[in-house]
């Protein structure tokens, strides 16, 4: 049971000593992207050849989380105790595209002889890595997420201890307010403001909820945090509970993330055992319990009120607001919901201070944001960058430019609720307001790059299909509107639509946006509206004067002729 600073220190020291026994620490990416590229076989190959070479006492093989550059996985980092000559004085070497054969070579040359396999080494100078600022992903790829000791060795739970022993709950709330942290789920609502509302709410029971129902197609920021650094979220939530007076918390994770669920559950068990959850946390007069709740994979359950309904065991669909969850949430009690990425920022803010956090980002948007780079880029994967970085920096520098020498056409941000930003606006510095101004949103961090081969109508259609399938069906505009909008987009994409159809589509976008009950419906038209705003001609080019009717062709009787 950890009760004090020194207890934490002991664990940390033991862990560091344990690591220091080894000359090399081979960190094999064990995240979903690399696993699907064969990372499991790579790790086995390392273990086998280390055994064969008799290097077991000198080399530790560790499964770690995502290192980011998923397009070049499986990634393996070799960390050495001492800088040695053969690797050019570096203590860390990162290999890309590792396969079992390469693992064997690395073992024989690098681990045994201290000579890096240069051809497969990624430079840490690569802008993809160099320009990142890792706060929430600080431990991803560094620690074994299934060991609390690893987390503690990297300063974990220090912030909780600090908050509990040196700050009043109100001071914690104020610190978060001062930091300028905003909700990372997409809305960008000031986190401190939410915390204060729950803090001030008078009720017998209060709840904090982490939203890990990441549903945007292609997004895996939250999954990565949950899989790679579960304790960071738990620590953030526990601090939040202390600050707001909540006694119970829920981690809402979608069922499609079984690894995240397993690691969070393991982490909760470990934290409980260490007295970091439960009654009398860190021997203080403060208790907090945490449970994982598994969502059945409905996109709409990312919406606050639908998520709460789902936790209560009800049909996951939104309800009218007000009352807001901080007034009446879970089981009618005040409830605060933050995205897991938001919670992952907390421990760093407490440890390093609000001012440190405020120093990162733009006037209105502080800190860093994780983006999932995808689409027609040379380098794709997960990055965490300071807010205020320009779109162009991400695309051209970090992403290595558009693949195959094609021209960039647009960047889609914000997933199904977002929009397409054309090349002309690439110098925009990213923050919540600037993206909104361009007709898109920050969202949860989707970042898809499109080149001239991509059809904007198809993009809009893809996201509309997604929204149609994910509509919960409660309110009519979203339930029926998305169906009609999808059909019109389909008709347009097949050159079967008239200008009347286009006008009808725009009418529907306007109506669905303004009349839908929740965010899903209100933002569903965004991909259409933003592509129409910047790429209207592309739609017009697909128009036809005499649209063929869906049922223009009669059925074929040939097969029916004979009795």
């Amino acid at each position, binding site marked *: 049971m950890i009760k004090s600073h020194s207890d934490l220190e002991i664990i940390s020291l033991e862990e560091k000593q344990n690591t220091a026994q080894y000359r090399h620490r081979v960190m094999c990416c064990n995240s979903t992207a690399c696993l699907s590229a064969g990372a499991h076989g790579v790790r086995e190959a390392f273990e086998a050849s280390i055994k064969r070479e008799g290097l077991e006492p000198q080399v530790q093989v560790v499964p770690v989380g995502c290192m980011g550059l998923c397009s070049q996985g499986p990634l393996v980092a070799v960390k050495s105790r001492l800088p040695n000559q053969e690797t050019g004085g570096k203590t860390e070497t990162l290999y890309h595209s590792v396969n079992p054969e390469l693992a064997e070579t690395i073992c024989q040359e690098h681990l045994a002889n201290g000579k890096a396999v240069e051809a497969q080494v990624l430079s840490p100078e690569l802008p993809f890595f160099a320009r990142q600022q890792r706060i929430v992903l600080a431990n991803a790829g560094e620690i074994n997420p299934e060991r609390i000791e690893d987390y503690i060795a990297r300063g974990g739970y220090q912030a909780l201890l600090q908050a509990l022993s040196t700050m009043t709950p109100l001071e914690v709330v104020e610190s978060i307010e001062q930091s300028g942290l905003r909700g990372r789920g997409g809305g960008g609502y000031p986190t401190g403001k939410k915390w204060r509302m729950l803090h001030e709410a008078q009720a017998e029971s209060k709840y904090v909820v982490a939203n890990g129902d990441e549903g945007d197609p292609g997004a895996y920021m939250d999954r990565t945090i949950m899989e790679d650094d579960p304790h960071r979220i738990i620590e953030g939530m526990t601090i939040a509970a202390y600050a707001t007076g909540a006694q119970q918390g829920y981690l809402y994770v979608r069922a499609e993330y079984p690894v995240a669920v397993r690691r969070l559950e393991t982490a909760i068990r470990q934290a409980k055992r260490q007295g970091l959850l439960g009654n009398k946390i860190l021997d203080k007069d403060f208790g907090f319990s945490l449970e994982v709740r598994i969502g059945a994979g409905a996109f709409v359950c990312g919406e606050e009120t639908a998520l709460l309904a789902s936790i209560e065991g009800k049909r996951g669909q939104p309800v009218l607001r007000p009352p807001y969850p901080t007034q009446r949430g879970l089981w009618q009690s005040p409830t605060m919901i933050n995205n897991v990425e938001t919670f992952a920022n907390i421990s760093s803010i407490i440890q390093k201070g609000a001012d440190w956090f405020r120093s990162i980002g733009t006037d209105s948007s502080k800190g860093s944001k994780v983006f999932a780079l995808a689409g027609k880029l040379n380098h794709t994967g997960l990055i965490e960058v300071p807010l205020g970085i320009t779109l162009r920096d991400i695309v051209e520098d970090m992403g290595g430019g558009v693949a195959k020498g094609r021209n960039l056409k647009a960047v889609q941000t914000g997933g199904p609720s977002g929009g397409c930003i054309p090349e002309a606006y690439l110098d925009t510095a990213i923050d919540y307001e600037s993206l909104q101004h361009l007709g898109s949103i920050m969202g949860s961090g989707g970042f898809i790059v499109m080149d001239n081969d991509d059809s904007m109508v198809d993009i809009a259609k893809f996201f509309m299909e997604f929204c149609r399938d994910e509509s919960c069906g409660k309110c009519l505009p979203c339930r029926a509107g998305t169906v009609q909008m999808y059909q019109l987009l389909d008709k347009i994409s097949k050159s079967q639509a008239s200008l009347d159809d286009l006008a009808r589509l725009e009418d529907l976008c306007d109506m669905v946006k303004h009349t839908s009950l929740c965010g899903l419906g209100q933002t569903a038209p965004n991909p259409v509206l933003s592509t129409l705003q910047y790429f209207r001609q592309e739609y017009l080019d697909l128009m036809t004067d005499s649209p063929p*009717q*869906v*049922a*223009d*062709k*009669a*059925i*074929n*009787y040939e*097969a*029916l*002729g*004979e*009795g």
Partner: protein
Amino acid sequence: MSRIKLATVWLGGCAGCHMSFLDLDEWLFELAKVAELVFSPIADAKVFPEGVDVALVEGAVANEDNLELIKKVRERSKWVISFGDCAVTGNVTALRNPLGDPTPMLKRIYLAANVVTEGVPSEKGIVPALLPRVMPVHEVIKVDAFLTGCPPSAARIQAALEPLVKGELPKLEGEHIRFGQGA
């Protein structure tokens, strides 16, 4: 005063709207003073003529013949009016749509065990093939006004015809537009 050229067209429907038109009874004499019936199932023209002023179209678009005729009607008429619920909504004629492709239905009806059969009727150029989906008229062509009802009552038809014979599009509202009813 010259009379307007009036046509009535019957696509996939039950003829109830045409019967309701005949329920105008003696007002038909008034109508005859201002309108000339140039094409109708109750008249003998075989080809839809050019220069029609007003075409009342009963029924939904259900087969190849309907499709061919309605396109001709649109080309040759100044105003096309969807006449009755089948034309406006698909109504009962479109009740087959939720069943999907009509092929199994045709087979069931024409290849039934107790039927002496030559197969599903399909003589080319004679028996028009069904469209996979019955469509209201405005899904196929532009429609200028809508006259709802199953059927629209004679009074409702008269309310629509009165402006039409004067060269104005009708503006029906209130109970005059209720689906499914004729009032």
